[in-house]
């Protein structure tokens, strides 16, 4: 069965499972030959570093250009480069989408070495897109209604989000997620590289057995939404590297600034709309080829 896997953060690969290994080796050889004149420089990349949807100085003065330069240009880029290095070693993890890769390498709580890099690439892509210049303020209509329904009030949501961010001991992330099965929003915190995608529960496992291809692809957008039970809507990076240059130890100030001036409720709105459409339309009836 041929499958084409497309995201803007990975190269398009058409692979026939029976000749997958052979073709990848051919590609390596071709690359090596064409770059031979450069003294044997071998360049392979499976994932690319996506730029944030705004210039690096666009979030000033709330998040400095310097922070973006180091956070995106060094940390995020480092995760991408290291992931590519790991993926280049053998073909075992070849052909996964990013979400699949994260779940496969999470290995049910016993993570493989690739997990940290893969998850952090996803986490940072998601984070840059959770912010926008002129962000903050209040969400509108549908998102606001859902927040008020699930948290009581927007103020209550802010309090919960802030508290989670302050009490994430050590490095980690704070997420506003949509619980797919219960159709309600919740605030969750994760440590280090972990993200809500790895918290699939039994229901999703069963569903994936029924449909051999259970992923829904939205070709107009870069992000895959797979059948996982916690759909991330907004995230905040609370690793120290994300706020130290601008706020030093004052994580509370950083969190407030994020909620007041950076968080992109537009992004939240479109992510929720997609998640809800998926929920409302039910499981896709994809014919198994």
């Amino acid at each position, binding site marked *: 069965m041929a499958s084409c896997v497309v995201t803007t953060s990975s190269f398009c690969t058409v692979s026939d499972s029976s000749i997958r290994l052979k073709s990848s080796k051919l590609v390596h050889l071709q690359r090596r030959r064409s770059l031979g004149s450069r003294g044997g420089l071998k360049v392979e990349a499976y994932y690319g570093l996506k730029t944030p949807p705004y210039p690096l100085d666009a979030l000033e003065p709330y998040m400095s250009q310097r922070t973006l330069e*180091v956070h995106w240009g*060094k*940390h995020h880029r*480092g995760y991408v480069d290291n992931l590519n290095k790991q993926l280049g070693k053998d073909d075992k993890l070849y052909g996964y989408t990013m979400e699949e890769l994260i779940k496969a390498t999470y290995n049910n709580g016993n993570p493989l070495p690739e997990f*940290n890099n893969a998850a952090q690439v996803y986490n940072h892509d998601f984070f840059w897109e959770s912010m926008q210049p002129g962000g903050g303020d209040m969400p509108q209509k549908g998102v606001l209604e859902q927040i008020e329904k699930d948290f009581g009030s927007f103020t209550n949501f802010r309090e919960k989000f802030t508290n989670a961010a302050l009490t994430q*001991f*050590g*490095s*980690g992330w704070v997420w506003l997620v949509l619980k797919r099965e219960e159709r309600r929003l919740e605030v969750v915190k994760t*440590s*280090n*590289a972990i993200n809500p995608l790895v918290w699939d529960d039994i229901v999703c496992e069963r569903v994936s057995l029924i449909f051999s291809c259970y992923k829904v692809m939205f070709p107009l957008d870069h992000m895959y939404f797979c059948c996982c039970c916690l759909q991330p809507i907004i995230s905040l990076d609370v*690793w*120290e*590297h994300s706020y*130290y*240059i601008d706020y*030093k*130890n004052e994580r509370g100030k950083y969190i407030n600034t994020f909620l007041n001036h950076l968080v992109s409720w537009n992004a939240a709105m479109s992510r929720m709309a997609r998640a809800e459409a998926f929920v409302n339309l039910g499981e896709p009836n994809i014919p198994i080829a």
Partner: protein
Amino acid sequence: MAIRSLASRRTLAGLKETSSRLLGLRSIQTFTLPDLPYDYSALEPAISGEIMQIHHQKHHQAYVTNYNNALEQLDQAVNKGDASTVVKLQSAIKFNGGGHVNHSIFWKNLAPVKEGGGEPPKGALGGAIDTHFGSLEGLVKKMSAEGAALQGSGWVWLGLDKELKTLVVDTTANQDPLVTKGGSLVPLVGIDVWEHAYYLQYKNVRPEYLKNVWKVINWKYASEVYEKECK
């Protein structure tokens, strides 16, 4: 009269209870931020004065303050017999108490170059390091590698296993003290690899911080602890 004396005895008993409870509350030991035995800028260029000041006055102070708060809440919960609050407070105690313990050791693990910072260990500890790791360079290489590979926040330690009488290199996550990795482990040298320990100076290049921090490690203190524990 009998009733009055009974009543007064009860009241006295009540008063005794309240006062001992009050005494109990007051008697929990609170902690204070220890002073650094050197100036903030004394460890330059290995660690900048700016980092040392924020690390000590803001981060360590926050651990101390929050630890005291958590202990007070714990004391109240224990006295009330509120088991679920007691359990709920454990993570805050582990985190903030661990932060205080670890940083108190860390400040003693560092010394300005002119006060012996970076001078290789002699005596018993020097010998033990050579036995277990081949050489000081071998130990430094191992600890730096483990420190660099640690994901997220944590510490890398050189510890003494009191029971087995061996040296160990280990890491702990977040603010977990070394003792969480083994009840008989005594920390000799701990290196903070939380980003706040190096970010302003080294940004994302943790290996560079780990290369330079050895120039200000106070092996004299580590030797003292080692010799004391080995008696």
